[in-house]
């Protein structure tokens, strides 16, 4: 599942990069910083990432994913620190759905 999530996030990055100038393209790497002190995304960028990730999770993983609930918003800088931390968080949330 983690590999699928990573693949899904890489396709999110592809879509985001289409709207960014070439010198601001995000690398498809789990270490790519997103939000926080060394983050690469401003507010609009992060909002776009969340919207596209939710859409692609439904389309590519066949699972609904909500990244705008209060639980996620209360830990934005941890969840969105890097692409890897986001992948881990999505994995956790999808597992919780399974358990639930």
């Amino acid at each position, binding site marked *: 599942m983690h590999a699928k999530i990573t693949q899904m996030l890489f396709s999110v990055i592809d879509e985001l990069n289409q709207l960014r100038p070439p010198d601001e393209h995000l690398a498809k790497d789990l270490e790519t910083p997103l939000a926080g*002190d060394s983050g690469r995304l401003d507010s609009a960028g*992060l909002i776009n990432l969340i919207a596209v990730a939710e859409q692609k999770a439904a389309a590519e993983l066949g699972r609904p994913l909500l990244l705008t609930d209060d639980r996620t918003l209360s830990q*934005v800088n941890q969840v969105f620190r890097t692409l890897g931390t986001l992948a881990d968080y999505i994995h956790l949330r999808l597992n919780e759905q399974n358990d639930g």
Partner: protein
Amino acid sequence: MEIKTFTVVDLKTALVSEDFWLTKTLPITKHRALSYCRNPRAAEDDPVLLVAYQDIQVIGYLGILPDKIFVNDAVYKLGWLTSWWVDPSCATAGVGAILLFKALNAYDQYIGVSGVSRTARKALHASQKFMALKPLQGLDIRLRLNVTRDIPRRLPALKIFRVLFKIFDEMMDEVVNLRSFFWQQRNNPDQRLTFEYISTIDEETDHFIQQHHQDDLTRKEKSDLNWIMNYPWVLSAPLKDAASKRYYFSSRADRFSYLGVKVFEHHNEMIGFFLLKVRDDRMSVVYSYFESRHATSIIAAVFQHALVMNVSILRLYDEQLVAGFSDLGCPCWSAKKNSREFSLSKVFADIPLANYRLQGGDGDLAFY
């Protein structure tokens, strides 16, 4: 980072607290906070202000204006976003995103947006949660040139020619006065129309508005218009005070006022009501109520007020007033199209909104 949500009750407490006003950046001014607290469409537990704090300093905020929209017999509560700010040094901290999504969650996704900045528009578009409504297509009518104000604004180096600009303006004003004199002779609004000015909505006006607001999306009532007139967000003041230097949205202007104008024809029949907002040298009609057959008389009345109140620009949003202006041949230097954008969140997608009228003061636009 900590996000605090202020409801109306919390804001009332904040108004009398000393600590709330000690931050380097203010998330709201006192008079705007008072206005939020007196909003007749807000419940005591409605969230109206979200503030992001980092080490007790404000790094972002977002105001929310509770309102209602009316479609057929249904009433929907929503919050209009207003004054969305993020400290540029925290641009990548996710503050703007958190504020937006918290606002959406606080109102079960029932959120509206009016007249946004380019940055905010980009962020809202990115969220894919909003749909644009048909924008209001209005007119900016330039009645006086006012180069004394406009040229130094664009080219500060030319400030030294201020006296010359002033002389030029006075000469041009005489041209305007002459053209207006002939226009008034031709149209005789003084002979046909009489006015009554109000600073609060009286019973007659209330009754008149209720007869003419059925097609309005927000169907403003007596209490709403009284609130707008009596709790402004911008104060008339000659200089920036300490608070306005610490707040990043408009809080003062050299001249700022509202004027309610009742229009009568043949001295006794009330044919219209409009609420004017005057900010410095600009006048806007923020709400207007009349029947189509009286549109020409109403625009004549509006235009006459713009002339005597000595404004440079008259801004209209009502399509009947815009059409009436063209028919009336009012003297002006130029008339440029303008538009006001409105968006609602996609939870409104299935609601038939297209036949309803937005007015130039809807959202938070009456207050700026």
